[in-house]
């Protein structure tokens, strides 16, 4: 028996014993998500137990070094852990922007002190992080950061505004891009700063979207004093850190979207339910043709993700790029939700109240929400720019 096989057995046995039964049931709604943080509550005692047990082994951040609260696993073992979690149907013990996005960047660019201070709390779910990149004048032009941070003694004084800071109203800390040298070139005067949200002068205002309430906020900084040791990487070197984080974000968005879409009712049966059948097919052949097209595209995207993953695994280069996935996934998701709206017809026009089933309102809100998917995390236009430049090598 190889070491890996032994590890697999160990994992399996441990999971069988450690994962509460209720944490193996399919997730129903967002209350089943555990985000941690000082203000985060557990919806059930089992959620707490499951998180604590996983965190204890460092398996909420399996590949991080153990001294920072991680599991210290190599890629092969981490894959085994993931497979076994999936096999048992275990829910994620912790969802965490910190673990997914900030952590890897800190490991690469952070000081020893920063790693010891922040990584273990992330891995244990004690501190919840949010991201402060976008500003009103910095959408696609992300480097156009106007939020200022001026060094005053051993503290930075931060003034400015961030937008699209997801979950800022429930987060404990924020990682931010701030301008520390206004005279330098756009990308060269930016620093990467960690800010405690409880600092004086931080104000958060939720954003309402066309789809209704949202986790997004505007976050305002007025004379916020931040210890200089919270700067990650070198001063004015924040853009490098930011880009590393962005790569993770893009991959994340297409993965999350894929997971969500798979929970939906297939368009074919939705259409059969709403439009009826005629003979063996949906009664509306033109709609049916559109659905088939969208289903084929969804299948193609799923296969492409797998093809890319296999290619990376085999060390045969990256295959098609992250930008491709983000673009295809969001554009397809918009298209599928437009079809869902077309299928549900008048019943997809409801905002709330009587007369509309829960799944009908959900479809409508999801359709409206989807319009943002091709804007956030790098708009479709930005993805096309990236593909044209980096993949196709077309000139500027």
């Amino acid at each position, binding site marked *: 028996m190889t070491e890996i096989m032994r590890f697999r057995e160990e994992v399996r046995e441990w999971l069988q014993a450690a994962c509460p039964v209720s944490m193996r049931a399919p997730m129903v709604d967002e209350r089943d998500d555990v985000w941690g943080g000082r203000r985060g509550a557990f919806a059930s005692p089992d959620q707490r137990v499951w998180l604590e047990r996983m965190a204890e082994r460092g398996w909420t951040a399996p590949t991080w070094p153990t001294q920072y609260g991680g599991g210290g696993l190599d890629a092969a073992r981490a894959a085994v852990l993931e497979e076994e979690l999936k096999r048992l149907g275990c829910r994620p013990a912790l969802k965490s922007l910190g673990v997914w996005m900030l952590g890897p960047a800190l490991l690469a660019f952070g000081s020893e002190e920063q790693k010891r201070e922040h990584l273990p709390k992330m891995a244990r779910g004690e501190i919840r992080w949010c991201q402060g990149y*976008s500003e*009103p*004048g910095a*959408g*696609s*032009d992300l480097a*156009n950061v106007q939020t200022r941070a001026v060094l005053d003694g051993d503290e930075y004084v931060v003034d400015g505004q961030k*937008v*699209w800071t997801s979950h800022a109203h429930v987060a404990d800390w924020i990682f931010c891009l701030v301008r520390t040298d206004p005279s330098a070139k756009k990308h060269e005067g930016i620093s990467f700063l960690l800010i405690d949200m409880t600092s004086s002068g931080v104000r958060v205002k939720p*954003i*309402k*979207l*066309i*789809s*209704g309430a949202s986790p997004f906020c505007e976050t305002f900084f007025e004379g916020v004093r931040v210890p200089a040791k919270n700067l990650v990487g070198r001063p004015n070197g924040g853009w490098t850190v930011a880009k590393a984080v962005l790569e993770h974000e893009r991959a994340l968005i297409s993965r999350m979207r894929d997971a969500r879409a798979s929970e939906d009712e297939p368009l074919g049966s939705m259409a059969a339910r*709403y*439009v009826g059948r005629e003979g063996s097919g949906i009664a*509306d052949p*033109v*709609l049916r043709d559109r659905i088939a097209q969208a289903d084929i595209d969804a299948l193609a995207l799923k296969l492409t993700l797998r093809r890319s993953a296999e290619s990376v695994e085999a060390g045969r280069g990256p295959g098609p790029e992250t930008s491709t996935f983000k673009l295809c996934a969001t554009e397809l998701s918009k298209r599928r939700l437009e079809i869902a*709206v*077309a299928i*549900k*017809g*008048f*019943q*997809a*026009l*409801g*905002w*709330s*109240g*009587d*007369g*509309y089933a829960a799944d009908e309102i959900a479809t*409508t809100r999801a359709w*409206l929400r989807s*319009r*943002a998917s*091709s*804007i*956030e995390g790098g*708009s*479709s*236009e930005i993805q*096309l720019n990236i593909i044209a430049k980096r993949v196709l090598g077309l000139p500027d």
Partner: protein
Amino acid sequence: MSFVLTEDQESIRRSAKKLVEERAPIAQLRALRDTNDPLGYSRDLWKQMAELGFAGMTLPETYGGAGLGLTELGLVLEECGRRLVAGPLFASLLLGGGAIDLAGSESQKEHWLPRIARGEAIVALAHEEGRRHSLYEVAAHAAPVGDGWAISGEKTMVVDGHVADAIVVVARTSSGGRDGLTLFLVPRDAHGLDVQRRATIDSRNIAFVRLGGVHAASDSVVGIVGRGADVLDRVLDRATIGLSAEMLGGMQEAFEQTIAYLKVRNQFGVPIGSFQALKHRAAQLFCEIELVRSLVAAALRAADAGSDDVALLASAAKARASDVFVHVANEAVQMHGGIGVTDELDIGLFLKRARVTEMMLGAAAHHRDRFARLSGY
């Protein structure tokens, strides 16, 4: 028939534009929505529209109307579309009022048309039942009872139903598809009539109507028993054209707001309107809107001229208006970027209105099917 507006038409357009710009900012729609206004439209604005003669614009002068054409009303609806005004004009004048005008008895006309024209009464039309527009699939039925009828069934997407003083209800009086339909004029307070307002994404006034054996006297029939489809066809052709004019205004406004934004929003140190990919998409939208404009204008004029191709043009206009409004609104949101998906900005309201109007009276595919049928293929 000419596409060029006459002096009188220009003047109507100007006064509609002025009224809407001054008295119906989009903030009004927001206020009605956010306060959960029970009426759902501005009574004040409606009064002013009536004073300008808009409420009875296409009704005969003998019944207090202005005796003008659909072309003129189209100008007003287009301006309303630009500010997302969804007052009772469309439903009362083109749907309920349209049916009475076209097929009502003398006494029905005398009773209702002058009040509609003065903006004192609203008459809705209850014709939809399923999840999408399907004119002749009517399950609501009317059974003869004594000297009248007992109507039972359910209707959906009744525009302005909850503020209507009366509703023209389509019910089946004998079996068959297109045949056997009859129109009944049912007063709002009729026993057994239940009207529930629906909260739609675009805050347009839409109601659900349930008829539980509503009694309708024999003189409440609009037109001839069993021949309701003939009336409906003509009423809905006119309403479809009017709705397309409203949609034209909406897409034009969303487009203009987007072009303006492209000129002022800077990214990477330049206005985003200088990026060629966005330029080309904007230019394509311009072309599409111009094509819709021509179809709408031709359909309005064909209705006034009583041409044979009214139905064909109505379907052509609605098919294109539906697709283009949705396309323009989608692009408008995308080109606005992050701010475009916030509730704070108006552009999202156009996205929502686009979807609702797209489905009302038949979506694009429905009208392409009808266009093909009318074209003999």
